[in-house]
């Protein structure tokens, strides 16, 4: 186990290093940021000053080494566009993204588990078949198109909910969140639903499969024979068996939600890191793109690692060891 952990950590380190090299070199070959930074009317001296200020006059490998040194000190460079440190820019917007992903996760649990449970307990009923068909549709629908349709129906057509931006935020226990104000909740509802749709489908299918399997098992039959009420059988005995895999998968999916928020944030103009990434790619704001990618890769490695360890803790049948070797 310890050997596994150490090797995994080393592997993660190599991955981050390789990724940073690829991303940095790649991003620095594309486009010329000087054209964006300096207005066309600027004179030669002004151009030279800007180039020097951002270190663009040095060879690429030296820029990379400087960049690596910077990362070690928590400095990802300054944004060309905003003039602020890239890391601070990302950290400023991270709460909005995490909040959105969290709301989506909550929605997936609150909507997905009851629906899946219902379909799993009564697989033959019409409603169940509709739920399962709906979940297939949920997998097939492209996220961005669903977002558009949500805006079309609820914001433009019915005018119930706002279509863009983050609403009023409040400060709770040091976190700035929009989950506690009415305006904030109204703003987060559509984007969260949009982001959650795939996960709701996933949870429905997982719960459905789990419920169908578990309802065949002896302890459920015994509970029935004992004369327990249906509500207690499903709500207590069945649910307990299904919950562990569902929660584990959802934990895994959290990173996925962060990645997919790129799409949702762009549609709903949600001021999170996903929108920042797209804007930065379009504006060739290299330091922000590089910083985002490295931070998100780090986050993923941490999540995957934590889940691997957690998974083996929850399910002793899974033994952690190096695969393939």
């Amino acid at each position: 186990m310890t050997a596994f952990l150490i090797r995994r950590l080393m592997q993660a380190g190599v991955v981050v290093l390789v990724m940073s090299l690829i991303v940095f070199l790649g991003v620095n070959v594309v486009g010329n940021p000087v054209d964006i930074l300096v207005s066309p009317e600027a004179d030669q001296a002004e151009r030279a000053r800007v180039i020097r200020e951002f270190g663009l006059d040095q060879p690429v490998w030296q820029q990379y080494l400087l960049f690596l040194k910077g990362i070690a000190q928590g400095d990802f460079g300054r944004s060309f566009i905003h003039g602020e440190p890239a890391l601070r820019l990302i950290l400023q917007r991270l709460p909005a993204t995490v909040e959105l992903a969290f709301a989506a996760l909550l929605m997936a649990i609150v909507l997905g588990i009851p629906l899946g449970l219902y379909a799993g307990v009564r697989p033959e009923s019409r409603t169940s078949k509709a739920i399962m068909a709906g979940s297939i549709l949920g997998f097939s629908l492209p996220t961005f198109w669903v977002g558009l349709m949500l805006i079309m129906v609820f914001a433009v057509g019915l005018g119930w909910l706002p279509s863009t931006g983050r609403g009023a935020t409040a400060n709770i226990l040091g976190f700035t969140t929009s989950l506690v104000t009415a305006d904030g909740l109204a703003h987060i509802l559509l984007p969260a639903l949009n982001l959650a749709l795939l996960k709701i489908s996933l949870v429905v299918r997982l719960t459905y499969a789990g419920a169908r399997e578990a309802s065949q098992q002896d302890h459920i039959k015994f509970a029935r024979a004992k004369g327990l009420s249906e509500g207690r059988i499903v709500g207590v005995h069945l649910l307990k068996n299904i919950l562990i895999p569902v929660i584990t998968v959802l934990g895994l999916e959290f990173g996925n939600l962060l990645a997919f928020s790129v799409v949702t944030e762009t549609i709903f103009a949600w001021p999170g890191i996903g929108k920042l990434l797209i804007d930065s790619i379009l504006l060739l704001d290299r330091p922000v793109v590089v910083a985002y990618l490295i931070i998100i890769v780090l986050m993923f490695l941490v999540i995957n690692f934590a889940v691997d360890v957690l998974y083996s803790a929850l399910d002793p049948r899974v033994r952690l060891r190096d695969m393939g070797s």
Partner: protein
Amino acid sequence: MTDVLPHDAAATGPLAHTLSQERNAGGEGARSVGDGSMPAAAAAAPPGRFIAEFLESRVAAAALVILVLLVSVAVAAPWITPQNPYDLGSLDILDGRQPPGATATAGFTMLLGSDGLGRDLYSAIAYGLRISLFVGVASGLVALLIGMCAGLFAAFAGGRTESVIMRVVDLQLSFPAILIALMLVAVLGKGAGKIMLALVAVQWAYYARTVRASALVEKRKDYVEAARGLALGPVRIMLRHILPNCLAPLIVVGTVQTAHAIALEATLSFLGVGMPQTEPSLGVLIANGFEYMLSGRYWISFFPGIALLITIVSINLVGDQLRDALNPRLRR
């Protein structure tokens, strides 16, 4: 194994990663969980029976018909549309933003309305479908070739080579496809060729894993032993004996992956980092309509979206039925 719909862009991330870990931990590296692949040695049924089994599901049959229709529309676009949306000379800005059913200055009826530049939406969708399908299928085929070779090679070489290849595959599959695609697009820049390159890079790992899983099973079978006994070369055994028996899961994964590639391309294009405006795929058309949506002109985004949706859903349905028809375990 078919209970949790496999291969969705979201579920193949860390979930598949963990499952593959579990699989490997079990010793037998062959049974692939949750990635839509299935035991090899399917497709032994004669074609007639296979077709009959496929058509058993009316939904799948309908999906196949729709898919054939869509492909025909895409292929025949220049002959069945009233306007060439790329020919800027034939566009009239006065026709812009017309609702469905309006008549264009050139005289034809714009069945689905027009977009901001005065393009007939029906024509634009037919041409867009062409680009979307081409990008999806072409990148899928290239990825299939690369992934197939890598998977076969890994299964056959074994040892260190195998573990290096599969480590890369596992690592890549532990990140969501859209993240890898965005990363590549950020590195490579915009353009049709680069998008296809990014799609290939995203997809190859799925194929590699599928092929390796079934090749490992096949490798241990007697006929391979017999071929070895005949002193046939390893390349020949791999390509002529093992590969044909790995095709069934590959076809299924290929179908579902194509749907994903199309959706991913549309997503990237929608975000503005995909296909350029000069080659408007369905995603670009939807993105163009986005700005008009808030003013109530829904059709500019809506109809290309519906076209995309029908394409993806029908490919998925066909893929689902293919899996059932090719899977000997489900055979009654």
